[in-house]
């Protein structure tokens, strides 16, 4: 027999997830929320109440419990052709992300499917937390809704493969209270073929390829993965990157090998990399000295309430072409930049709050041994876990992109058309 103890605010996630995994009758016993703030002296009484609830489950074993019953599913829907009425339906049924979508008619979905050699019914992955089947046809449907051109389909298929890999930890990213979102980085010839922006404003709005690809993935994560905000998606605040974040690397101006080549693919192979991230921090550095730039970036990376430090995570830096040029001209390779940043960003554990230090001790004991307030914590397990991308237009800005903590980025080749 299994029982889950849930703090009240998380009951809905517990019940939905249990239903998704086919065990809607999983007994759930509730404790007050936030449970973590309750004083130690109050816990024995709560424990007695929990024990009594578990014992009651035995007594009630012949009483049927309500199962989560979800709406009957149809593959095709009849909807109004009026754009405003369709718009309303999407709001009511939560089919969209809050913005207008293109109705995914059979003609539009077919046009999308014609770009892939795969069969429409092929299951690319089952996506957490609801473990819905991401078929090629469903991926195409969500891509049409997002506004993608048909040529984007193969990028999205590769992205879905990537996020379903165990090391990406989609379950953690989708259900967390953290503002975890998925950033897609496109490399290789397909970036320019699709017009994916890696230059000025590449992390912002304006370019259709960027915003629609990132958005399609979010719709897939919601409509197929089942993570609806306030429901299985428990994000306290979320972040704007949950609307969409997708860009190319600015390969032509980068002084180093590009991300996909660094990861073992050939230059001519197109790829997509999925990164679980928590936010973006502007780093405005006017210095023209390589070591000063690195020191400034490393200092900006270090902060007490960081998931990367307590987990040993995977932080990313988007380096502007100007900064990359300065670093490269100082003779630094990408690996050397990572090494300098890794060393420079080591942070005294005393910068954390006591309870955060406690969780760090538990989480990283195997990796680092005993951790005290005097320990200098590395932001990641090794320098090679720091991700670096050269992207952006002119300007003295690089961007720190903190990771989710318990996720590793995954790179997948995009099917050639």
């Amino acid at each position, binding site marked *: 027999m299994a029982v889950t103890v849930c703090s009240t605010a998380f009951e809905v996630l517990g019940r939905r997830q249990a239903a998704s995994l086919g065990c809607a009758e999983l007994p759930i016993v509730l404790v007050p929320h936030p449970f973590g703030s309750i004083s130690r002296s109050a816990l024995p009484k709560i424990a007695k109440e929990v024990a009594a609830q578990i014992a009651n489950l035995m007594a009630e074993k012949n009483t049927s419990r309500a199962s*989560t019953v979800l709406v009957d599913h149809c593959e095709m829907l009849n909807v109004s052709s009026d754009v405003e009425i369709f718009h309303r339906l999407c709001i009511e049924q939560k089919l969209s992300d809050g913005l207008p979508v293109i109705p995914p008619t059979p003609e539009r979905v077919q046009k999308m499917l014609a770009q892939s050699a795969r069969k429409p019914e092929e299951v690319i992955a089952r996506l957490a937390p609801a473990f819905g089947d991401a078929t090629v046809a469903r991926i195409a449907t969500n891509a049409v809704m997002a506004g993608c051109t048909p040529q984007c389909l193969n990028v999205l298929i590769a992205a879905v493969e990537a996020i379903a890999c165990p090391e990406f930890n989609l379950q953690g990213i989708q259900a967390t209270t953290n503002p975890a979102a998925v950033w897609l980085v496109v490399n290789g010839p397909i970036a320019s073929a699709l017009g994916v922006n890696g230059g000025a404003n590449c992390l912002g709005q304006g370019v259709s390829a960027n915003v629609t690809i990132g958005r399609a993935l979010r719709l897939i994560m919601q409509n197929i993965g089942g993570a609806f905000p306030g429901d299985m998606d428990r994000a306290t605040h979320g972040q704007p990157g949950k609307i969409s974040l997708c860009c190319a690397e600015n390969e032509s101006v980068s002084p180093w090998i590009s991300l996909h080549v660094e990861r073992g693919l050939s230059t001519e192979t197109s790829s997509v990399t999925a990164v679980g991230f928590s936010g973006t921090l502007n780093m405005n550095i006017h210095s023209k000295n390589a070591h000063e730039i690195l020191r400034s970036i490393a200092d900006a990376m270090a902060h007490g309430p960081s998931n990367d430090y307590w987990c040993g995570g995977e932080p990313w830096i988007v380096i502007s072409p100007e900064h990359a040029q300065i670093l490269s001209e100082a003779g630094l390779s990408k690996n050397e930049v990572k090494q300098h940043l890794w060393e420079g960003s080591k942070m005294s554990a005393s910068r954390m709050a006591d309870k955060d230090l406690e969780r760090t001790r538990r989480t990283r004991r195997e990796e680092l041994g005993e951790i005290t307030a005097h320990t200098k914590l590395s932001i990641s397990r090794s320098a090679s876990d720091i991700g670096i991308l050269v992207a952006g237009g002119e300007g003295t800005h690089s961007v720190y992109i903190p990771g989710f903590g318990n996720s590793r980025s995954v790179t997948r080749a995009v099917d050639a058309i």
Partner: protein
Amino acid sequence: MANSILIHNPRAPFSQGSGLKASVLDHLAGKVVGFIDNTKPNFNHLMDDLAVTLLEDYQVRSVIKRGKRVQSIPAPSAVVDELVAECDLVITGSGD
């Protein structure tokens, strides 16, 4: 419907619920109870207090406490296998 169009459903069908029947014990006395500590604050204390209560007040035979490195990854399969093999009841946690 007048002026209607056919669209593909962007949603995947989600589970209808009870694929697995939840098994329930007759009573707690004499049973082996396992815990997976989800590492969230206070769960370790709850686990300790529950263990005492179940042993003293409900006469469970014994308690096995296991954990995982961090809350947002699953427990190691060796831990899961051990608890499935050894325990009559497993208690886990979710939330904050």
